[in-house]
C-alpha cells in the first residue's frame, strides 16, 4: 500500500507547478471526493489511520497552495532541495497577486476597468439608476446604456461570445428572433455583468417587457 510518502503537495493534488487558485480548489474537491470517509471509490480501502493521514496531507497541500505566501515559501523550498526546476514555477512566481477567480482575457479586464471608471460619471450614474429603477427593462434601455458607456457590440462579442446579431436582436426587442429563454437569460446576465448593472433585475425586467410585447394588444 503506497501512501503519499515522498510526494510533494503538487503531486498529492496532482497539479502542475503553475496551477492557479481555481485549479487548486478543483483538485482539492476531487481529492476529497475520492479520499473522503463516505467515498464509494475507496470504501474500506484504507484503515482509519491511513485515511486520516491521507486527508491530513491533502488538507495541508490545499492550504499551502492556496496561500500565496506559504506557497512561495514552499516553492522556494522545493527549488532549493532540487526537487523542482525553477522554470516550472515561472507563471506563478511572476504573478503573485491574487489570481482572479477566472483567468480573464485581456480585453475583458480592460472593458471592466473602463466601465467601472465610466459609470462613476454623474450622467451615466443617473442613467443606470434610472434604468434599474424601472419595472420593465427594454432592449432600448440596454442599448442606451451601452452607448452611453461607449462600448461596441463587437467588444461584447469578444468577451461573451454572444453573436452580434443576437445582441442586436436583444437591443431591438425582436421578440420573434430571440434565443430560447434559457439562453436569453444567460445572455442577459452576461450583458448585465459587462454593463455592471444588477443581472437579476436586468433579466427579470427584460423578460417582463418581452412578455408584454408578445401579448396581442388588448381592445
Amino acid at each position, binding site marked *: 500500500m*503506497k501512501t503519499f510518502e515522498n510526494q510533494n503537495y503538487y503531486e498529492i493534488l496532482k497539479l502542475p507547478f503553475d496551477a492557479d487558485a481555481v485549479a487548486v480548489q478543483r483538485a482539492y474537491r476531487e481529492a476529497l471526493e*475520492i479520499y473522503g470517509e463516505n467515498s*464509494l471509490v475507496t*470504501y*474500506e*480501502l*484504507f484503515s482509519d489511520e491511513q485515511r486520516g493521514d491521507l486527508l491530513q496531507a491533502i488538507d495541508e497541500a490545499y492550504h499551502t497552495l492556496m496561500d500565496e505566501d506559504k506557497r512561495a515559501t514552499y516553492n522556494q523550498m522545493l527549488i532549493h532541495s532540487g526537487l523542482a526546476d525553477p522554470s516550472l514555477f515561472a507563471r506563478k512566481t511572476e504573478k503573485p497577486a491574487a489570481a482572479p477567480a477566472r483567468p480573464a482575457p485581456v480585453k475583458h479586464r480592460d472593458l471592466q476597468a473602463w466601465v467601472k471608471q465610466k459609470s462613476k460619471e454623474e450622467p451615466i450614474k443617473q442613467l443606470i439608476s434610472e434604468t434599474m429603477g424601472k419595472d420593465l427593462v427594454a432592449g432600448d434601455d440596454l442599448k442606451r446604456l451601452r452607448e452611453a458607456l461607449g462600448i461596441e457590440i463587437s467588444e461584447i462579442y469578444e468577451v461573451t461570445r454572444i453573436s452580434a446579431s443576437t445582441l442586436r436582436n436583444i437591443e431591438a426587442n425582436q421578440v420573434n428572433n430571440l434565443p430560447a429563454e434559457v439562453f436569453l437569460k444567460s445572455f442577459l446576465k452576461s450583458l448585465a455583468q459587462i454593463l455592471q448593472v444588477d443581472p437579476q433585475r436586468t433579466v427579470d425586467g427584460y423578460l417582463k417587457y418581452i412578455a408584454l410585447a408578445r401579448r396581442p394588444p388588448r381592445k
Partner: protein
Amino acid sequence: MMALFAQCRGMCRGITLRGACGAREFVTIAPQLKNMPVIIPIGGGKGGVGKSFISANLGALMAKRGHRVILIDLDLGGSNLHTLLGIKSPPGGLDRFLDKTENRLEQVAVPTHISNLSFISSLHCSMEIANLYHAQKVKLIHAILRLPCDCILLDLGAGTHFNTLDFFLTSEAGVFVCTPEPTAIENAFRFIKAAYLRKLKQIISRNAFHKIVKDAVQDGGNQALRYTDLVDLVLKYDPGMEMFLRDSIRRLQFRFILNQFRKSTDSTLGEKIKTVCNRHFYSPFEFLGQIDFDERVTDSILSKNLFTLQYPESKTAIDFRAIVDQLAPKRVASHTMVQVR
C-alpha cells in the same frame, strides 16, 4: 500405447515448463509461452455480484468469435455455472478428474449448446470439496494450464479462501467483478489485498530469500502477517532482494469489471477506482468496463438462456462485447495447435 505416449509427453512438458522459468513459479509465466491457453480467472470477493453470470456470457461471446473456450466452475461447493449455461444435470466433471477416473482434464469437459464452448463442472464433487487438498489443487492447476484450447475462464467462488486465491493467481492478469455498492467494493479491496499477500508469499517461498523471511511466510499460524511486514522483513534481512520482490509484485496485474451499473451511478466510478488503485498499490490496475443493469437478466436466468445471446442488441450485451474485445486472445483458434506441440 497412445495413452502412455500422451502421459510421457505431458510429463516432458511439465519439465520443460519448470526448466524454462527457473526458480520462478511456472504458473505465472504460462501465458507467455507459445500455444498456451489464455487463462482468465474471474473472482471478486463478494457473492452475488455476477461472477458466474459474467463468466458464462464472456465464454459464450468468445466462443462465438471462434475461440475454443473452456469454462471451469471453480466455485467449489457453490457450483451453479451449469444452470446459467442451460445444462440441467451435467455428467461428472472435476470429481472424475480428482478421483482419477479420468487422467486428463479435457476428458471431463462437456460440450455446451454453443459450439467451441466446453464446460467443466464441479457439481458432483464431494460436499467437502471446498477444502481441496493442496496436492489436488496443484494437480488441478497443472492440468488447467495444459488444456488444449485458446482460452480458459475460471469462475471462482466468493470469499478469500486461499484455494480461490491460488486459482486467481494462475494468471498474472486476473479479473475481479464488483458492483457499485459499498459492500461489494469493500470485499473487492479485501480480495485484492488477500491476493496480493498470497502472491508475495508465493514469490518469497519459491525464490532464494533469507531463511528468516521464508520462515515467516511458511509459518501458517501467523495470520496477522501483512504486506508491509513482509517488505520490512525483506528490507531487514534481504536488502538485495528488495528490487526483485518489487519487480515481481509489479508484474501482477488486476483487471476489473463493474457489474449491475445503473443510470444513477457515478459514470466515472470505474476510472476513479482505477486511478486510486494505481496510485496506492504496487500493481497496475485496468478497468475493463461497466455492465449495464438490465431487469431482463433475471428472466433469462430463469429461462436458462444466456442473456447476451438472447438480447444481443441490449446495452448490457454491447457492454459485454466491449469487454470481450479486451479480454479475448488476440490470435484466432489454430486447430492444429495440438499436433504442432
